[in-house]
């Protein structure tokens, strides 16, 4: 779908979505956005982005469908086990020194990472004094995250990841299986708060000691990425921690000087005094 007509239609559609639904995708990285919109167009049987825009403006029910195409990110529990191992072995000892802990999972999608962090904090004896904020712009993804229900077939991979992360318990201690699904334990959720929050348009969050935002920034252009890293700076306490995805870096950001490498190989950064 290369070609200039698509390129004309794209910003118009994003503007229409912003005006009508107040969701701002104008700062998303174009290459991935184009792919996702092309896919949405095909699945919704629209011939052009203009036709998709027309339908979006006149059929409100279609917007949540588009939102899923643009935002839902299938993750795994304990994805990149070395990240969780580094948090456990190198960040947790410092987090222990706080009487109460706040953690922000920004762009949590369907919640795999939220449960991973809760389980790790539980294993380290910190969950009871922790509050995990899990935010996303997609309400239906947040609902799924809150329900904590995942396909049983995925548990094999999750269990293996969990084990490699330096587990102190068995993943199966935390869920019950039923009808091809598993449900994660309610007690994990007692310390989670799910909230609708847009990294594009909303402001900074309550002061937190750790922000985990993995494979979210890759979908943003540099300008939006800088905005979000600014939010993270404001939200982190002094010497707070920021965890990014395995292939994300601060190298090309205006805020790179505000963070130092803490565990470089696992993309864990620490806020510097400025």
């Amino acid at each position, binding site marked *: 779908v*290369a070609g200039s007509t698509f390129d004309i239609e794209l910003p118009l559609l994003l503007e229409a979505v912003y005006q009508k639904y107040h969701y701002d995708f104008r700062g998303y*990285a*174009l*290459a*991935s956005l*184009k*792919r*996702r919109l092309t896919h949405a167009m095909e699945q919704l049987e629209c011939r052009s982005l203009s036709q998709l825009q027309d339908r979006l403006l006149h059929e409100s029910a279609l917007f949540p469908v588009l939102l899923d195409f643009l935002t839902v*990110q*299938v*993750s795994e529990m304990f994805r990149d086990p070395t990240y969780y191992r580094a948090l456990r072995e190198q960040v947790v000892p410092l987090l222990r020194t706080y009487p109460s802990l706040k953690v922000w999972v920004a762009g949590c999608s369907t919640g795999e990472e939220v449960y991973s962090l809760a389980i790790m904090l539980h294993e380290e004896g910190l969950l009871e004094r922790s509050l995990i904020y899990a935010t996303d712009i997609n309400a239906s993804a947040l609902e799924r995250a809150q329900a904590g229900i995942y396909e049983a077939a995925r548990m094999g991979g999750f269990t293996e990841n969990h084990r490699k992360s330096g587990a102190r318990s068995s993943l199966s201690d935390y869920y019950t299986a039923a009808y091809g699904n598993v449900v994660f334990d309610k007690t994990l959720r007692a310390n989670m708060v799910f909230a609708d929050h847009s990294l594009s348009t909303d402001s900074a969050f309550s002061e937190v000691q750790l922000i985990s935002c993995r*494979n979210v*920034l*890759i*979908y943003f*252009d*540099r300008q939006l*990425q800088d905005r979000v890293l600014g939010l993270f700076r404001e939200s982190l306490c002094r010497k707070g921690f920021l965890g990014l*995805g*395995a*292939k*994300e*870096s601060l*190298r*090309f950001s205006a805020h790179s000087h505000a963070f130092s490498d803490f565990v470089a190989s696992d993309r864990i950064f620490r806020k510097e005094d400025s």
Partner: protein
Amino acid sequence: VIPPQALTRDLDAVVVGTSAGGVEALCALLPMLPANCRVSFLIVIHIPRERPSLLPEVFATRCALPIREAEDKEPVQPGTIYFAPPNYHLLVDRGPALALSGDEPVYFSRPSIDVLFESAADIYAEHLMGVILTGSNQDGAEGLAAVGRAGGRTVVQQPESATMPVLPEAALQKGPVDAVYSLEQLQELFSCMGTRGDR
């Protein structure tokens, strides 16, 4: 047969896609690139997920050009070879800059050749060459067609000279390409990727 020299004029970037047998093919090709080459190379090779990619190390000692694993938002440098990291799609965005995505696999592949080729075609248009080498599934065939539609040059390894002919055959079935080369002809092609000044 179009001579390789006729295909390399006025190129900004070359995208290469391969899977089974690809490491061997790239071992024969990448060392042929001259040190004064100003073209950027973006490569997707299907490799098992979750394993740290050793490809940059494997090729670094054999090649005259610098080799890197692609990082998100990194501006594309001339005369540099980039590999897609395992478990991410590699795309080209405005800049041109590299972009990564964790979107769904394409034909069970992430990184996907189609995703790289389509996004690169969008940015580089006629200043792009797409090269399809040995491979065992059809990911890449659609992407090469997109390179051709955008005015770029399209090259496919001769199926008979490929370790696995499935991918080259799939690419040829999608439509006409500019050149079908044996591995030796591809070596000649890579050796004449000189400075960008030869416009």
